């Protein structure tokens, strides 16, 4: 009850600030609040329901293949469709948290059966990928359940990855760079996106976590496989996109901090560019930094924590980067470290004065 009174106070506050033009549907708002009170879960619950769903689908696939049930492609395709549809319809109809694990499991099992069935039926892999992307998109439009949408977003991303790897492996860095730009766009334009329509508004939270995870997987893949391609022109294009994205982010950060002094602005941009250019050799590290900064910008703690873990991992992976000797790497790192320390000592003082 206290919670709802609190919400009433918030609504009144907005009403006072917005004036007479502010129209709202109080019944709708409180219905949604009441629903959320019953169905809000902690991060731990979300993670175990996803993990549980995956483990269950893994066990089911094991069962399917050991019993030889996969021999009938048509059967697999039909059951795949049935499973996916059941998951979507069930989520649309019940919307309750407790069916999450079950729907995650049958949703993933459905995709696996459909894929295997279609491939066994000799359908071209590209078409399979496209079909799955379309189905996942439809799922996103039909139900905006947090966990199912999160898996749909990852499914879309995974299939685009496979499409690229199968057809034009070398443009993978560009895809990852565009993913970085997309993430920054989504994070920095929350008000715009949730105002477009109710579907996007409900998808906003799963979209955030989905793009973070998809980007990290992408960064991991290019970090692992493109070490020898560093100075390929496509990598340069990708890195340029990442640099522009980061500068856009830096600009937003400057704005939110009210830094008006032109000299400080130029200094910040100059330093960011230098740091970015020196980190050209590992876009994964820059990508992790982008996740950290944009998550902090919108006060998104999960993304922030994931970004820090990714950052530590990618820096440790830099050790195995074959194009440079350990000595070069060591010099780059020490130089960067000293630059960061200098920025700390020089810029935090003038920034403070303007506060």
């Amino acid at each position, binding site marked *: 009850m206290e919670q709802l009174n*609190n*919400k009433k106070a*918030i609504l009144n*506050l*907005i009403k006072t600030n*917005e004036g007479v033009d502010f129209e*709202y549907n*109080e019944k*709708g*708002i409180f219905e*949604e*609040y009441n629903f959320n*009170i*019953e*169905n809000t879960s*902690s991060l*731990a*619950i979300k993670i*175990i*329901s996803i*993990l*549980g*769903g995956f483990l*269950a*689908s893994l*066990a089911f696939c*094991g*069962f399917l293949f050991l*019993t030889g049930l996969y021999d009938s492609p048509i059967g697999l395709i039909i059951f795949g469709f049935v499973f996916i549809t059941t998951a979507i319809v069930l989520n649309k109809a019940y919307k309750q*948290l*407790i069916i999450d*694990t*079950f729907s995650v*499991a049958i949703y993933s099992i459905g995709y696996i059966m459909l894929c295997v069935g279609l491939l066994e039926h000799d359908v071209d892999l590209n078409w399979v990928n496209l079909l799955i992307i379309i189905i996942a998109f439809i799922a996103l439009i039909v139900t905006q359940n947090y966990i199912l949408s999160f898996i749909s977003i990852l499914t879309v991303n995974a299939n685009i990855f496979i499409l690229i790897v199968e057809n034009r492996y070398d443009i993978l860095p560009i895809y990852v760079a565009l993913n970085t730009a997309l993430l920054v766009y989504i994070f920095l334009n*929350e*008000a*715009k996106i*949730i105002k477009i329509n*109710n579907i996007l*508004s*409900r998808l906003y939270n799963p979209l955030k976590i989905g793009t973070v995870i998809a980007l990290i997987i992408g960064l991991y893949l290019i970090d692992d496989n493109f070490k020898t391609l560093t100075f390929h022109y496509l990598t340069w294009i990708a890195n340029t996109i990442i640099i522009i994205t980061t500068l856009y982010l830096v600009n937003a950060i400057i704005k*939110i901090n009210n830094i008006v002094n032109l000299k400080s602005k130029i200094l910040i941009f100059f330093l960011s560019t230098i740091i970015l250019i020196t980190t050209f050799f590992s876009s994964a590290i820059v990508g992790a930094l982008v996740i950290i900064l944009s998550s*902090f*910008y*919108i*006060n998104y703690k999960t993304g922030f924590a994931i970004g820090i873990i990714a950052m530590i991992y990618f820096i440790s992976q830099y*050790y195995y980067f074959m194009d440079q000797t*350990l*000595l070069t*790497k060591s010099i780059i*790192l*020490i130089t960067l*470290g*000293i630059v*960061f*320390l*200098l*920025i*700390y000592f020089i810029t*935090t003082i003038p920034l403070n004065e303007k506060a």
Partner: protein
Amino acid sequence: MTKISREDIHIIARHSNLSEQSINNILLKDTYNDKASWYKFVKLLFISLGVGFTTIGVIFFFAYNWNDLNKFFKIGIIEALIISVTLASLFIKTNRSFKSILLTSASILVGVLYAVFGQIYQTGADAYDLFLVWTLSIILWTLISNFPPLWLIFITLINTTFILYTEQVAHDWSELFVLNALFLFNTLFIAGFLLLKNKNDSISIPNWFTSTLTLFSLLFSTTAFIIGLFEDFNSQYLLTILTIIIVYGLGIVYGLKSKNSFYLSVTAFSLIIMGTSYLIKLFDSSEMLFIICLFIIGSITLVIKTLIKLQKKWNN
């Protein structure tokens, strides 16, 4: 004044004609980090990246095969670095977190020193005694700084030393014994930290720290349970099961008392994994996988249902 949360603004935006501009203003004012938190964060980011990159740079520098470099010079550089970083943390007038980060860097450099020592004198860089002296050397710094990342490094070092010791010296210790010891040891650490936190309000121990330790600890207990399950029954396994029952019981009680769903959900998840492996052992057939699939879905749904019920109770 109540802050307007992200959930509030999303729900209200869906059911009203609130403009994009107003939404943005509310988000900037109430939900997003303000200038003061940015200032704190940017400072911390620059220090961490600065000290972190420099320290890793030094590690890479010594990992490079320096055949021409004289050994006295090599060890001399690191020792000089350790001394200057430690002195800096002692004398530079700055905030506490910067000092702690410097001490953490010094603690890592001590490891580099022993690794280089091991490289020069051919003891092997992974000899357990090097890790032992490394651990012993940084005890005081860990206690003084009381900095969670340094504590995490310290505890990881103790674990590593112990594991290396069992691999290099104590060959006759069974795998179960080692896992039991690791489980108990890490659990005692967690219990200690949680007790301190509850007894003394002035000590702040971040949740991520105790959660990370808990995950490690549960990893050991779950592995121990599974390994023992597929071996002949022995007294060590009895100990494993007994400690699991006691520690998990205490964990659940703690989770319920502190209204923390993390401990409840990870304990439950570990138990579900154990249950699954027990089922695999019970029937070694393909149909079993189907039952396992149902078991996982059923048990996790049950856990989630219970947790939601608890959360509702806690909220009221």
